[in-house]
């Protein structure tokens, strides 16, 4: 489903503080599977996920998504792909404060022009699946860490994407909530979603819900 060929990424290229985060990553990722990227801080996991999720462009190399090359597309097309095909769960959840859980969840649907009623119905059903219906009207800053994460997951699913990208999803959760998250992962796989996540939490990388673990260090793959 996703193919990476010799992906390199430099930050501040041409400046004295030039830094290469990725050194020629080549990889194939299958659909409907949960893949975890493991490695210490600075190993390039997050950078790789931002490139796969069309949040950033590689400095060089090619990315194919469902057979189409997307690495050279202009930002507008990348945004379309990102909106339709990828859902993101960020480490800090990145919810918009002051808005309710429901209002946060429907935000990715706004640019598509889908009717509000339809978005709200979808969001309500997602919250129901994630057992959070009772908190739908609560402002997100009033929610616990686990609840905020479930709102972030619902938001990632509102446009029904094929791929869910989660960056360090359990970094801010205790063991019970982390296990709950792994349960949600299994549900997502059952729905046919492809999940890519970064983690150095053993609870995640050693979980049965994760089908493949890819180790990284210093911007290179060390174990696939």
């Amino acid at each position, binding site marked *: 489903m996703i193919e990476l060929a010799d992906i390199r990424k430099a930050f501040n290229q041409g400046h004295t503080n030039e830094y290469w985060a990725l050194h020629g990553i080549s990889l194939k990722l299958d659909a409907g599977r949960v893949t975890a990227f493991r490695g210490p801080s600075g190993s390039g996991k997050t950078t790789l996920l931002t490139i796969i999720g069309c949040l950033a462009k590689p400095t060089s190399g090619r990315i194919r998504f469902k057979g189409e090359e997307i690495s050279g597309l202009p930002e507008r097309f990348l945004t379309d792909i990102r909106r339709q095909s990828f859902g993101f769960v960020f480490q800090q959840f990145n919810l918009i404060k002051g808005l309710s859980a429901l209002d946060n969840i429907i935000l990715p649907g706004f640019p598509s022009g889908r009717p509000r009623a339809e978005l709200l119905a979808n969001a309500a059903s997602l919250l129901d699946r994630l057992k959070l219906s009772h908190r739908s009207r609560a402002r997100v800053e009033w929610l616990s860490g686990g609840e905020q994460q479930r709102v972030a997951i619902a938001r990632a699913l509102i446009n029904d994407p094929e791929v869910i990208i989660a*960056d360090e999803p359990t970094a801010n959760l205790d063991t019970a909530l982390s296990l709950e998250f792994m349960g949600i992962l299994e549900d997502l796989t059952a729905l046919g979603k492809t999940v890519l996540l970064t983690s150095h939490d053993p609870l995640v990388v050693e979980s049965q819900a994760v089908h493949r673990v890819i180790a990284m260090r210093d911007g290179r793959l060390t174990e696939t």
Partner: protein
Amino acid sequence: MRLWLEKQRHLIDFTLASLARRKTKNIGLLLAYMLLVFVLASLMLFTHALRSEAAYVLASSPEVIVQRMVAGRHDLVPPDYLERIGRVRGVQKMQGRLWGYYYDPVLNANYTFMARPSGEIADGGIMVGNALARERGLSTGNTISFRSYSGKLFTFEVLATLSPDSELLSADLVLLSENDFRRFFEYPAGHFTDIAMSVANPQEVRNIAAKLGKMLPDSRPILREEILRTYESLFDWREGIVLTVLAGAILAFAILAWEKASGLSAEEKREIGILKAIGWETSDIIRMKSWEGLLISITAFLGGVLAAYVHVFHFGAAVFEPVLKGWSVLYPKFKLLPTVDGLQLITLLFFTVFPYMAAVLVPIWRAAIADPDTVMRA
């Protein structure tokens, strides 16, 4: 089209929610902005209304007034001038006028004395302007004495006070009969203060004025349009004075509005990053912020203009009145006719909304073109 409309609705919904989330900042911004519009709009409405009022009042004044000059000063018009002017082709009507100023030590104010034909006012009677009557406590049937410049005391009976509608012109006016006027000021018989005339063809006013200038080289014809222009310049000048005085305050408000509008908080930058990461395009974010800017600036504009309208036409522009109306002991009390100049409003709209939109959109555009991956690293 439906999709586009739905999208705009979403953007407006989100904008309204965003405005509500940052209540304090936005209310402060709105108030500063509204105050700025209020000050500028009050000035514009007031001076425009005064100009319109002047034009309205002057519409019924004589087309040409002829004065006689001696050594560059206004002097009495000798008796034969009326007859000589009457011979100029195109002159339709003319009338010698008698008027002068009288200083009243009781109020420390100057009155304008003007003679009317004896058929209108009987000898021994006067009609007085509303402001004068108010200040001296006069009403119909009262008597009042004035000591003339020669030291003689004259007593008059107030026959009527002039209509308040004409107060702008008649605040300090005393109308009396021609005989009384000549006696009071010891005016030589047959002489006049000036001559008011009208012409048959309004297009010929300038030509007739030129003919008069040739025929009576010591005369000075004053055209109605010149008086109107002088009024306009006077109000323009006063508006300029007020603007200069207020420039500091206006600039301070403008800087405050600019700073508030253009300063993007860390929270707002973070939100823009999140929106981009979850699939919003740069153009969606700019559009959303445009709605936000438009809502604030149009609300401030409408609120400011409305407040200025009420201030000028219901409260007589209490804030700027003393400067814009000029100095006087006898202030006329008059209500300005509510007149609004569309072009002036559009100019104000352009100079307040446009810079604000630029102040809002430039930093937003800079934040919105940032790579969405920054949010992953927050």
